[in-house]
Each structure stands twice: as C-alpha cells, then as structure tokens.
C-alpha cells in the first residue's frame, strides 16, 4: 500500500458516502485542505464528529453533505455563531441535520476511549447539566469500588479521521507540535487515518517525547503546504484571523455562501492554499 499519495486519491480511497468521519483540530492545525477536497468530491450523508466544528463543518453542512453532527462547541472561534450550521438546525437548509451534542470533557474522553479500544468512556461530568436530558448517549454508571455515580458516553470510533500536521519523514512518520489538541487520539480511534503535512523531510529532527504518529498507524500522508489555512501551523504560518471574521459575512446568506464556495473550493485545488498563507508565513 502506498502511504504517500495526492490529496485527491487519499480522500477518494478513504472517505465514502455515509461514513462517520472526524476532521480534527483544536483551533490549530484544522485540516481545511482535506475538507475542501471532500467537498469537491461531493461526499454525502456523512456523520461528522468534531469537538469544535468551525468553518469546515459549516461549509460541509451548508453544501448539504452532512446527515448528522456530533460536537461539543459549534461556534466560529472568537467571532460568534456558525451561520450555515444554525440555518440547518433552525430551518433545515439545505437539509435537516441530526445533532448529538456533548461537552468537551465528554468528547475528549470518548476519543481517548476509542483510541484505547474501549466501548465507552467514564468520567466525572454532566453534573446538573441539561445535555443529559436531550442526548440519550449520555448515561451513567456506578463505580464498583466507591459507589460514586459517574458519566458514561460511547467511545468515538470514526471510519476515518483527517488531520493536518507539521511534517512527515520519508517513511511517513508524522510530527505534530504546539497545541496538539485531540489529534493523536482521533487518529488512533479511527479505522483509517489521513494526514496532510506542510512538508516531507529527511529527518523529523525532534525530541524523545514529541507527539509523533508512526507511519504504520496511518493510511495516507499527503504533502499540502498551507493545508490548514485559515487555521494555522505553529511556527510556520499564523492564523488568518481576518478570514474568520470575513466568514461571518460570507456565510450570512445563501447566495454569498454558494458563490464563495464555488470560487474558493469547488473551482480551486489543494495547490491554491500555499499562496493563501504566503503573507502569514513566519519570518525566519
């Protein structure tokens, strides 16, 4: 099996209609390029999982690709609401979507349980919180040693996880730095994992405790410089804060949303992202 491939082939091979997929990233390293490729390939009826669905899930929901959203915070970070997702939840445009809502602690625990091969996650949570009344996947169990009642949620086991990372070596071992979020757990919880990286290098040049994903834990690795834009890759280019603010306006109505998607996603290619981050690159 070829680990290195084009982003087109990685998405075509690893994301099918009806899949449960996670495109993870916690403000940092959001896999925009991979999500845009999925949009171009027109995948449908997806169940999308993410702690913090931001612009990419707003775009996928707005393009009608999503049947169900599993999340813990559905906002545009630092800006406000996600208008396409709101429109789908409040008005069913362009289609109705199901939602399964959790807290961050629950999802972080559920990914970790998935990566650990466990059926569920157990933690102290949801005490007095309203979500357990509207989400039947939030249950409880009693500690057999102390009798304490603890929260339980099913583990997260995506069919496929997509993440973006700093670099891979020539074997396909991947390094993630900075705010590492939930990406390692999301990769190890999934049946298949696709990683886009800024750069392929001879040597990862890292230290003993770095966050490294061995090549044999991954399905595909694609070199896509700028692949996180308008999110950022720590130490390589900054977050495009203006783009997040701009999204609030673009996504405000159907026409401007669809026009933006055509120009910037449907008629674009992964290679276009490198130019979008050129002015954001860190000066060495």
């Amino acid at each position, binding site marked *: 099996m070829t680990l290195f491939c084009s982003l087109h082939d990685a998405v075509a091979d690893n994301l099918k209609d009806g899949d449960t997929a996670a495109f993870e990233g916690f403000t940092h390293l959001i896999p925009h390029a991979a999500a845009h490729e999925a949009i171009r390939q027109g995948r449908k009826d997806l169940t999308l999982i993410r702690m913090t669905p931001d612009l990419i899930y707003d775009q996928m929901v707005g393009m009608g690709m999503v049947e169900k959203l599993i999340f813990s915070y*559905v906002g545009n970070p630092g800006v406000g609401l996600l208008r396409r997702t709101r429109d789908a939840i409040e008005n069913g445009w362009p289609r109705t979507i199901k939602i399964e809502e959790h807290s961050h602690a629950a999802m972080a625990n559920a990914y*970790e349980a998935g990566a650990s091969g466990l059926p569920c996650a157990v933690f102290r949570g949801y005490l007095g919180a309203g979500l357990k009344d509207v989400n039947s996947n939030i249950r409880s169990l009693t500690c057999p040693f102390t009798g304490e009642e603890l929260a339980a949620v099913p583990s997260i086991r995506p069919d496929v996880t997509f993440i973006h990372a700093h670099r891979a070596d020539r074997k396909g071992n991947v390094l993630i730095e900075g705010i590492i979020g939930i990406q390692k757990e999301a990769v190890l919880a999934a049946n298949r994992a696709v990683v886009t990286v800024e750069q392929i290098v001879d040597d990862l040049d890292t230290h003993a405790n770095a*966050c490294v994903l061995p090549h044999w834990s991954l399905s595909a690795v694609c070199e896509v410089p700028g692949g996180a834009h308008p999110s950022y890759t720590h130490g390589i280019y900054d977050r495009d804060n203006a783009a997040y603010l701009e999204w609030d306006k673009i996504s405000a109505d159907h026409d401007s949303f669809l026009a933006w998607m055509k120009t910037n996603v449907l008629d674009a290619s992964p290679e276009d992202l490198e130019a979008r981050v050129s002015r954001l690159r860190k000066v060495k």
Partner: protein
Amino acid sequence: MTSLDFTPDEMMTIAASRMLSNEDVCFVGIGAPSAACNVARLTHAPDITLIYESGTIGTTPDVLPLSIGDGELCETALTTVSVPEMFRYWLQGGRITIGFLGAAQLDKYGNINTTVIGDYHKPTTRLPGGGGAPEIASSSGEIYITMKQSVRGMVEKIDFYTSFGHGDGGDHRQRLGIKTKGPTLLITDLAIWRPNPETKEFVVTSLHPGVTRDDVQKTCGWSVRFADDLETTPNPTDQELQTLRALKERTAAAHSG
C-alpha cells in the same frame, strides 16, 4: 491615583481582575474573563497561572487571544498538553482553583445557558453550546462569572442548563453530589454580586462608581436583592486602566490581520 474617566466595560474587567491572586490556578473562558485574567497578571498577580482549554498551562500572552487556541497562548505557556490530559488530569483531577466563565443567559443562582434560546429541539437561536463549561462548572474549586447586564441576559429562568450553578439554590449542588463551591462571584458592568450563604441567590454587594440601585434593577430580569452593607467599588487606578487599554490596543493591532 484613581481615574474618573472610564467605561462600564473597563470597570467590569478591572473589578474582576482584582478578585484574582498570585496563588490562583485559573481556567480561563474567552472574552471578558480572558481580559480580566490578563489584567490581573499584568498588575497585581504576576504569578497567577492561566490555563486555556486548548491545553496551554501557565500562559502569559502579550495580546488577548481571539480564540482559546491561538498560537500566542502556546508560545508563552510553561507547557502545552493534549486536550484529554487537560480535562482529565488538570480539571477533573482537581487542580483548578477558579473557573472563570462568561454567559449568554444567567439566572440568579448562577446557572448558565450558552446552548439555545427557546426549545432545545426547535431553537429560536442556536448558540455555540457549552464547550468545556459543564465540567469547568463542576470540577473547578469555585466559579467566577462575568457578563454585561441586560434583561435578555440576566433572566428569571434560563432556557437551558448548559452549566450548573446553584440549581434551585440552597444545597442543590451537594444533593447532586457536587463537591466544589460553584459560583461565588458575579462581576457585571454595574456591580459586584455574591451568593447569599443560605439561599445561594446572587446579592449585589458593591455598586460600581456612579451606578444606582435602579440602574442595576433596570438591566436585570429578576428582582434584585442588595446587601445591607452595600459598598462602592473603588475607581480603577491609573495603572489598572493603562494596563487594560494598552492590552486592548496591542490586541486590536495584532488581530487586524
């Protein structure tokens, strides 16, 4: 030196910053809490530990982050851990002394809604949701809340219990098996509020300079109780105001892109 030339918003942030100390380990919400925590760090509490849910521990940002995961937070942190480690070891493990939250909707018992306006299944407005707040509210040693007053925001009954404060008041937290203190402080743009020790209802203990009881009641959706020994919040000092304004200026310059 104190200043007479300040906005209610500035007074809110500065009053909140004064409540934090060098010994605190503070889990910081974005927005007003983040500003207050960093003003504290830049004035009287240089050794305060600020933690953001993206995993950054002991962060000392030069500008306020736009999101909880800005690179600035990681670059200036003592260490950055994964999100599961953050929630399991540091929050659930009981290492956080203060959880500092904002609110879209708040009731008099410190219960917070940031999930929906209207019915959950058919919302009038779908808000972003809780994120880390449900467990911050139950696992932090105590909770500080800061928000601007409005009758839409401060309501008799919230539409959804995103995070649990004192529930219906009294010993409701203990009855649910929650061992932490819950909301102990509310700082608005008009006043400082603390819960009554018995009922747990928020009571105004200090009015900000120039604010009247009527101002507080007009912008609050429940019938407001005032402490017998009602105080006046000291004016911002020149140092506090200059620190806050410089922080806001640096932030605006950094985020203009």
